[in-house]
């Protein structure tokens, strides 16, 4: 893909918990809701499986943004996994902030029934990144 074209269309990698957000993404699909094709998700058994190293790798290899999404706090299928996710991602966000790229990482809570919320979250993220990229290009 040509470099300038890539700038226009962000590539986003999302890690989705199989019990909630991934289910919401399935439902969004069944309901034929639309979202940009730059958004691609990876199913993980629990958001706590997401090693921050995966996120760093995705960014270093060229993803414009990464999101991690799991069940709302208290609703984790594994009871407490997402509390650990929250700690790790909060720390990683701080690190990204230190490198002036805080906007590249987001953490959402999306339950299995929230297909609409899934779409909203990922599309907003996508649009925000797209705007940032365009600004950067102009500058």
């Amino acid at each position, binding site marked *: 893909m040509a470099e300038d074209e890539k700038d226009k269309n962000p590539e986003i990698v999302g890690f989705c918990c199989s019990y909630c957000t991934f289910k919401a993404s399935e439902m969004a699909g069944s309901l034929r809701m639309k979202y940009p094709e730059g958004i691609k998700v990876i199913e993980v058994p629990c958001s706590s499986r997401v090693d921050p190293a995966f996120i*760093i790798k995705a960014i270093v290899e060229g993803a414009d943004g990464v999101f991690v999404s799991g069940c709302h*706090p208290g609703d984790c299928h594994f009871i407490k996994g997402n509390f*650990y996710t929250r700690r790790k991602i909060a720390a990683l966000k701080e*690190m990204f902030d*230190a490198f002036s790229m805080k906007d590249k990482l987001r953490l959402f809570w999306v339950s299995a029934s929230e297909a609409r919320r899934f779409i909203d979250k990922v599309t907003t993220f996508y649009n925000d990144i797209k705007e940032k990229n365009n600004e950067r290009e102009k500058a």
Partner: protein
Amino acid sequence: MKGKKLKSGEIENALNQFLKDEQHLVLGFKKGEGGVGHQIFKGSLDHYSLVNPLFGANAALYLRRLFSKGLKVMLMLRPCEIRAYVELHKLTQVEREDIIAVSIDCFGTVSSKEKKDDVPAEADKLTGYFQDKDSMRWACSVCRERRGVVGDAGVRIDKSGNYWMVPYTEKGEDLVSGMEGEFEEVPAEMLIPESAKTDKFQIDMETFNKDFEKCIMCMNCRDMCPVCYCIDCVFNGDEYLPKGDALLNKVFRTGSTQMPRGKDLFHLIRMYHVSQTCVGCGACEEACPQGIPLTKYFKGVSERLQGVFSYMSGRSFDEPIPYVTFLEDELKDAMD
């Protein structure tokens, strides 16, 4: 806080007394031909030095996988070394049972690479020497904790040049009780003050890439980092830094590539790995053959990440490493 004001020579006396037991060792510093360096003393002290103005390595490195029981080891080290030991203890890399950890007020150090012959080894002269900030290692100039306030006990120096021995744990209490003198209130103000807060570390990827341009991926930085404790580091495998066939496979998939590759992955992931345990000692930078300003990044990032959980590496034996615990009601800003 109570401690004992020590008569001159009392520390050496006490250590020699301790070493009389065959099973006892002291890890501290020795004055030698080429300057001061780390030494494990057995039997008795020899050219002992309380302080060491040349950095070299972080001695906590030598404590990894030290589990023996029955041999007592007394650590007489700098605060950053004792702090790294505390973190290694939390990581089950060293047994605490037979170790007495004493941190000694630190005046700062000179990089061992600089080979300065004029560095004094005596505490009373070091303050003067380091008036000139430039002679100090950068890591030391921004050190978070130069006071001997960590571990089981600390050696503190007051403004009139008196030495104090202050216990922080039961083990420290036993140690200090056995020394000469009476317990008295420790002066509030000491020679080495609390460190000033440094600015929040802020950088961007362009600067990072420039700073690491000369990195040859020798991984000395990792090998000399006291808290990079893994027996088989993840970067030995192919997931992040492919080698051999895996490398060729990757190149076939992605196209021509500059070598060495994966610098950003290696440093950023390692940075995250040590983010809660890094003590900012700068041993990594000291070990780097290419003069990469590693401390700036590792200390800078870890300080910010520890701040998220109000954690400070090595401050206390009891605080759990933040990634293995949580509070149900916290980090409201973390989610988007």
